[in-house]
């Protein structure tokens, strides 16, 4: 392979020749197949994803994802930073759900050190993480609808996401890459009026979900564009390691918050929404319902925040014992795992991030084969990838 394969348009045909395309019957008219390069700068690829499409007319015969344009070597950086210093970096992976990333990392290190965050910190963590889940789903809904051609939901979701970001800003000063948690708890005590802000948001947001649904759920065009598009069966989803709403939409009732509760999710009462057909529409419904369930969790959590310290007994210098740990949480996009190998020093010996977007993106190919270009756009949107996390 030549040195200049990536970034060289002439390498397109070369790359596509590697696609294993099974075209069972010869086309009746021997027409040339069209190879199209979608991305890395394309409105619908949500960043710098490049998808090479092999088309017969508009029908997709095969795809190949070229990723890595946003690769920053997070895992290498981790090996050269202390545990505390690395904490802000995780926010930059899935920047739409920075709080979840931070939660996963902090919990993994805590587990490795065998300490636990105090109850009050746990509650704050749950509230912020679930708020972040709503924010992430809102962003997904807006961009996904925009991909399918509905402009308006984007602005509605951004309006409402703003309220969540305001809460984040008041809590920790940052809106997007929050760095909200510390190893062993939270650094910041909640500000005065935090509970009130959160409950206000809940009452503000409840009718807004209905508003989104009024625009889309029964819209004929939306139904036609999403039903039976990008179908993935439960067996395929499991075999491809797909997690999160995409897996649940295929009918697998599996959510890490229930299956292997972390933080203190076991204390809260909520449902796991699942779909039946594993198509784009079901994924839409699942995520909409997840927002409602997140609101339920927040409601319970905000009502029951205990008093107490917000930091556990963590030494100033974080030096986990020799050993290794894998800890994963249910991020908005799926299972987000951290595999940390410690050699007893202040820096991780090896830190591996198991990103949900990266693994889920792998399912794109089988989801779009035989569909049209317009569906590729819809399916990329429905997988809900964040390239910062795919490329790390």
């Amino acid at each position, binding site marked *: *392979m*030549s*040195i*200049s*394969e*990536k*970034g*060289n348009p002439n390498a397109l045909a070369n790359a596509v020749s*590697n696609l*294993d395309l099974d075209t069972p019957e010869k086309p009746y008219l021997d027409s040339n197949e069209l190879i199209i390069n979608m991305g890395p700068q394309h409105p619908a690829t949500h960043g710098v994803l490049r998808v090479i499409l092999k088309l017969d007319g508009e029908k997709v015969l095969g795809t190949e994802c070229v*990723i*890595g344009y946003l*690769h920053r*070597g997070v*895992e*290498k*950086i981790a*090996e*050269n930073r202390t545990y505390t210093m690395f904490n802000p970096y995780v926010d930059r992976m899935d920047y739409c759900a920075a709080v979840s990333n931070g939660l996963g990392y902090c919990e993994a290190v805590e*587990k*490795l050190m*065998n*300490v*636990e965050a105090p109850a009050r910190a746990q509650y704050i963590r749950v509230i912020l993480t679930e708020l972040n889940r709503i924010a992430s789903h809102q962003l997904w809904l807006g961009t996904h609808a925009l991909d399918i051609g509905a402009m308006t939901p984007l602005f509605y979701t951004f309006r409402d996401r703003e309220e969540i970001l305001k809460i984040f800003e008041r809590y920790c000063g940052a809106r997007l890459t929050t760095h909200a948690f510390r190893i062993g708890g939270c650094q910041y005590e909640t500000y005065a009026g935090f509970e009130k802000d959160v409950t206000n948001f809940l009452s503000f947001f409840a009718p807004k979900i209905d508003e989104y649904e009024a625009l889309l759920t029964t819209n004929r065009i939306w139904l036609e564009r999403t039903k039976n598009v990008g179908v993935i069966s439960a067996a395929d989803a*499991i*075999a*491809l*390691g*797909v997690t999160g709403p995409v897996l649940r939409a295929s009918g*697998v009732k*599996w959510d890490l918050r229930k*299956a*292997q509760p*972390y933080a203190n999710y076991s204390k809260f009462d909520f449902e796991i929404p699942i779909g039946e057909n594993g198509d784009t529409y079901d994924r839409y419904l699942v995520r909409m319902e997840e927002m409602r369930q997140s609101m339920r969790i927040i409601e319970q959590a905000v009502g029951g925040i205990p008093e107490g310290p917000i930091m556990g*007994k963590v030494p100033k210098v974080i030096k986990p*014992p*020799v*050993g*290794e*740990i*894998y800890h*994963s949480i249910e991020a908005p996009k799926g299972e987000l*795992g951290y*595999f940390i*190998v*410690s*050699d*007893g*020093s202040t*820096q991780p*010996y*090896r830190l*591996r991030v*198991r990103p949900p977007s*990266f*693994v889920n*993106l*792998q399912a794109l190919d089988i989801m779009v084969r035989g569909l049209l270009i317009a569906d590729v756009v819809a399916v990329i949107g429905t997988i809900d990838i964040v390239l910062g996390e795919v*490329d*790390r």
Partner: protein
Amino acid sequence: MAEEVKTPAPPPPPQPQPAKTGPSGGPEGEKKPTAEKPAAAESAAPAKPAAPAGKSDVPAKAAAPAKPAVPTPVPWTSPLVEKYRNQYGSGLEALTYLGQNYLSVDRSLIPDILRRLREDEQFDYCVDVTAAHYPKREKQFDVIWILYSFARNERMRVKTQIADGASIASAVSIWPTANWLEREVYDMFGIRFDGHPDLKRILLPDGWKGYPLRKDYGILQQDTEWVQINLGIESGQ
């Protein structure tokens, strides 16, 4: 293609050196489980009753207050382990650390064990495939599979050690999801997977030299040649 591993030996800038002193502890830490295993079997009594029962982290939390006690891996006993131990004998070790189970397996047993875990033990979800580099060790790499079973709601890891330049059986035919994950391992560590349908770099450009997550690849090191040719940046940075 993967054999030019030692290329960056002269260039590493001084900075990564202190980082490299860390890894010297690494091999120890990694060898510890194997070395201490017999010791752990008798000494780690308090954690032992919890270990077989607990795949969840509840026992680990219970053990938390005992601050000074540095947790050590303890043997993992379960019917599954018994079955495999009877069959494969010395080639495998089953341990539990902080409530998480893992199997250390000889490289030759890998395809067999993975397939059986998938087919017989319902570990139908391959969470992750990754690796770690221990340059001081004779077999430099740990390759780690993190598995999950929906039916048992249970996680486990399978580990094996391989030498630099050696290849290992691909798991793509067992779990399709291993495709990209193995490509990433190849991309970052240069470990080849036999039988992988399309083993090429995934995150880095195809012509990139070196494997960044190896410990001898400095954090500031970059493939300047690639940058000069493809991005037209003279300084190569």
